[in-house]
């Protein structure tokens, strides 16, 4: 008698068993970790720094706060939050991928940011923190890689303090048709070629482009956040909707 078929999920445009997705995503990020920042700059012409700047501003992070940065990888946001929350605050940089976490920890330590930073290897779907621990939870360009996004959103809700907020910064659906076509051309032709030349890995960047297309659009993600319990949810489109910043509060 054959075993029951595993439920399938998407890995970019491929269909893979649910249990395999996390492993395949891990392979992608082990492969790209060392050149991650360089590729971000090349792919977005440096604009990703502005998107993150916007996210930091809308986070309303303040001195003394407890911040959790999920899928924080190479530490762009954690660095900013570390400076904002100061010595009376705390920033936890969580990432499921050990290579990304190592790169992030080395980077931040080399910049002398040590006091208020902690590094945790964790899965967003089941965060290893107590209820009501954080004033702010952020996840930048990480949610699209999570297998069970609803579980992750519920987990984030749980660890937030009442009054706390969630920020999701992620690629989304461009709002204009001509932009959309240009974006497709860019993602599916140029990106993998760049990936091959710069990091010797076209497949990972093809996965990147595909995973963006499989990610829920602006309104759908907002709905998912509301289902997870978040209130006063909204989103801001940036760069014509190529990237969106979603916010939600726990009351």
């Amino acid at each position, binding site marked *: 008698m054959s075993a029951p078929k595993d439920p399938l999920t998407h890995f970019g445009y491929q269909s893979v068993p649910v249990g395999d997705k996390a492993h395949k995503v891990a392979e992608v990020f082990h492969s790209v970790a060392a050149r991650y920042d360089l590729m971000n700059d090349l792919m977005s012409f440096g604009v990703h720094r*502005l998107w993150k*700047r916007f996210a930091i*501003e*809308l986070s309303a992070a303040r*001195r003394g706060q407890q911040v959790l940065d999920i899928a924080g990888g190479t530490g762009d946001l954690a660095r900013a939050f570390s400076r904002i929350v100061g010595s009376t605050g705390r920033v936890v940089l969580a990432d499921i991928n050990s290579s990304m976490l190592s790169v992030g920890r080395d980077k931040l330590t080399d910049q002398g940011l040590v006091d208020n930073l902690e590094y945790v290897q964790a899965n967003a779907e089941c965060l290893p923190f107590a209820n009501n621990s954080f004033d702010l939870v952020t996840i930048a360009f990480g949610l699209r890689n999570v297998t069970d996004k609803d579980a992750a959103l519920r987990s984030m809700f749980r660890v937030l303090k009442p009054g706390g907020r969630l920020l999701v910064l992620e690629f989304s659906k461009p709002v204009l048709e001509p932009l959309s076509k240009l974006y497709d051309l860019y993602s599916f032709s140029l990106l993998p070629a760049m990936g091959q030349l710069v990091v010797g890995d076209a497949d990972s960047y093809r996965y990147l482009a595909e995973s963006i297309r499989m990610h829920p659009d602006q309104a759908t993600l907002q709905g998912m956040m509301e289902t997870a319990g978040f209130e006063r949810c909204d989103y801001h489109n940036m760069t*014509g909707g190529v990237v969106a910043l979603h916010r939600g509060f726990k009351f």
Partner: protein
Amino acid sequence: MATLPQVLALKALEGIINRTLRYDAGTRTRLSALHGRRVWVQLERPALSFLIRLDDRVYLHAEADGRPDATVEAATVELLRQAVTGVDFAIGGPIQVRGDTGLVQQLSAIARDLDLDWEEALSQLMGDVAAHRLGSQVRGALSFGRRLARTFFQNSGEFLREEMEVVPVRWEVDEFHHDIDDLRADTDRLDARLARLGKRLDALESTV
């Protein structure tokens, strides 16, 4: 609703103000007496509002957090500039102040004494935000964002480097340049290989 161009414009202005303050200990001391105070500023043209928050330095936020100590409403940025640099700006008239009017007058006096060209500084808010509203959607998305980014980085490169560390440090830049050199070498090799293949193809075709 806060937008990316607005936030960048506010951060650029914030950077200019704080950089000037760095070399003015006296003004910093006066400001420290106002530590924790918040003023909400609302402009009609361009439609822009922001929060001035005084803490370890001056912060300009796109959104309010809690109730401000005072609110300033002005029809245009020009009027705001006049309010900031005018000797005795009248409360009422084109500038409306609500709440702690003493705080606003103190801030105005401090701003006046700062060695800063306010017309120049406030133009950060004017040009960028106005251009965003006037431009087409796509322009407002890609090319504008990039132009703004360039201006932002040019104006606040130092601020970014020292305050936010968004700009890469020396070794990162060097490594980036090495990577670019490798990329260039790779593409040169690719070019050469394509040329060689092309010649071989021509040779093959000529024998057919």
